[in-house]
């Protein structure tokens, strides 16, 4: 089981890197073409946005595990260690179950896309809308992983400096 999760994590890390590189390549092509070439492709903007969506879909689950997805754990920190562990585990489970419940409506949303194509790349939009069921599936999977981590007593905390803002 843990080997499968490690494999998924590896694939997700590779996927976010690829999505990021595609995004950067599309934007750079756009700047170079507009500045130096007589023509500029119309599809770079679309490709960059779609890459961003895939970056989010593949990275959201990972960010849950690293603690980048911030929570406010001030109240939790006041609890005695055993209760803290239980609360951490339960909230991570709640996240996983919530994300799991959102997979069917996200698939429904994705199905709407099969009737549409993107204007510049002429891609079928269900391939792009697929990022929504994907993000929910990743959040569900890594929610469960985080629950296991928390039960073992090593959930990340905002106090370690992993946060945004």
């Amino acid at each position, binding site marked *: 089981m843990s080997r499968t999760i490690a494999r998924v994590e590896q694939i997700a890390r590779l996927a976010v890197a690829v999505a990021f590189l595609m995004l950067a390549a599309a934007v750079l092509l756009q700047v170079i073409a507009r500045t130096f070439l007589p023509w500029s492709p119309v599809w770079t903007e679309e490709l960059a946005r779609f890459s961003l969506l895939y970056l989010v879909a593949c*990275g959201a689950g990972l960010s849950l595990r690293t603690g980048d997805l911030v*929570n406010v754990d001030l109240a939790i920190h006041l609890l005695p260690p055993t209760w803290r562990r239980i609360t951490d585990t339960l909230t991570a489970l709640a996240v996983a179950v919530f994300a799991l419940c959102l997979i069917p409506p996200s698939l429904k949303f994705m199905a709407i896309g099969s009737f549409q194509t993107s204007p510049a790349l002429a891609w079928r939009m269900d391939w792009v809308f697929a990022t929504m069921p994907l993000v929910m599936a990743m959040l569900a999977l890594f929610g469960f992983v985080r629950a296991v981590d928390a039960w073992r007593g090593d959930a990340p905390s905002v106090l370690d400096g992993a946060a945004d*803002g």
Partner: protein
Amino acid sequence: MGVAILFGVFVITLVMGVPVALALGMASAAYLVGNGMPLVVIPQKMFAGIDVFVLLCIPGFILAGNLMNGGGITERIIRFANALVGWIRGGLGLTNIAGSMIFAGVSGTAVGDAASLGGVLIPGMKKAGYPADFSAAVTAASSTIGPIIPPSVPMIIVGALTGVSVGRMFLAGAIPGLLLGLGLMITCYLIARRRGYPHLPWRGWGELVRAFAGAFWALAMTVLILAGLMSGIATPSETAIVASLYALVVGGLVYRGLAWRDLPRVLVSSAVSSAAILTLVGFANVFGWILASERIPQMLADAVLSLTDNKILIILLLNVLLLVIGSFMETIAALIILFTPLMAVAVAVGVDPVHFATFGVLNLMIGLTTPPVGVCLFVCANIARLPLGPVIGAVLPFLASNLVVLLLVSFIPALSLWLPNLVFGN
């Protein structure tokens, strides 16, 4: 009733320690189910919230900041700041503030600044004889400059939400950012003189020039970003990606602090941080849509405008409101949920949207250094290995200085509008 469920679930899940993004999602789902609406609204609005071109800036600027950091820029910035102001009384405190101002031009988030500079400077200040609480307080207070001096992640999100030009907002932040730094430096100097904090010897012009040469490429990145925006050659999203390419070249070839084998790690960790911010943007967009459909922004705006339509009072009221919100709520969630209605109030009494965005973001950043949910305060206290209490006490004078600058920026529109209007026209 629906609204009570929305806010009830949000607060309970937040206190339980659910990540802010998912707390917003759970509250939205509870509202939808309670009102017999389909859950497909969630992926739909989430998708719409993320599928915005200007949001591409976020991974771009985060990567640029991380590449510069990995390339050894932090030490060089600190060395330069130290050569510049370290010889004045309270020198390392001043170095900390000047370092934050320079670092602000590389990174777009306050917490990033607090963690990068604090990690080096807080232990350094403690070793040099500064009290730990003062060291943490200076670092936390000066990290608020990060998202005011461009680039700025909160301003990018405001741009994505309201359509206000990100380029204009970036330029609008430049002068207020310098004022914040100046105010903090004066405060730091006064405290240092009264308490007799140490200072370093003046190391001569030679060291200053050498340190400047070391930090030059970091300073040049701020110039590159501003020049890209001002000249109109590149949009903010394009500037962000060009900046990361620049950071890659500087970190790898000029500073040689970045090895090729580090790159995949830096790329993935930047992508994961960006994914976290954008997931929050997505879920907050669902929550914001529900608020809008319940006409809450409208009600809030009407309530404020029914109290008074005096511009000065409204600006004061907005400041108080945003400060309170900023000290309780996560910045991005606060932006997405409340910025649009509050901007509507401001615009209704004739405040320029860019001006409002500048003092609005400044308010929320000051909220990062006030209890109860001051993330920068937590991060710095944690680095200094202190409980929150003494750091809160030590941050008060700096907070006062930041509030004075806030008032100046709120009531003197020219401080924020002069530069963007000069460059882009009115």
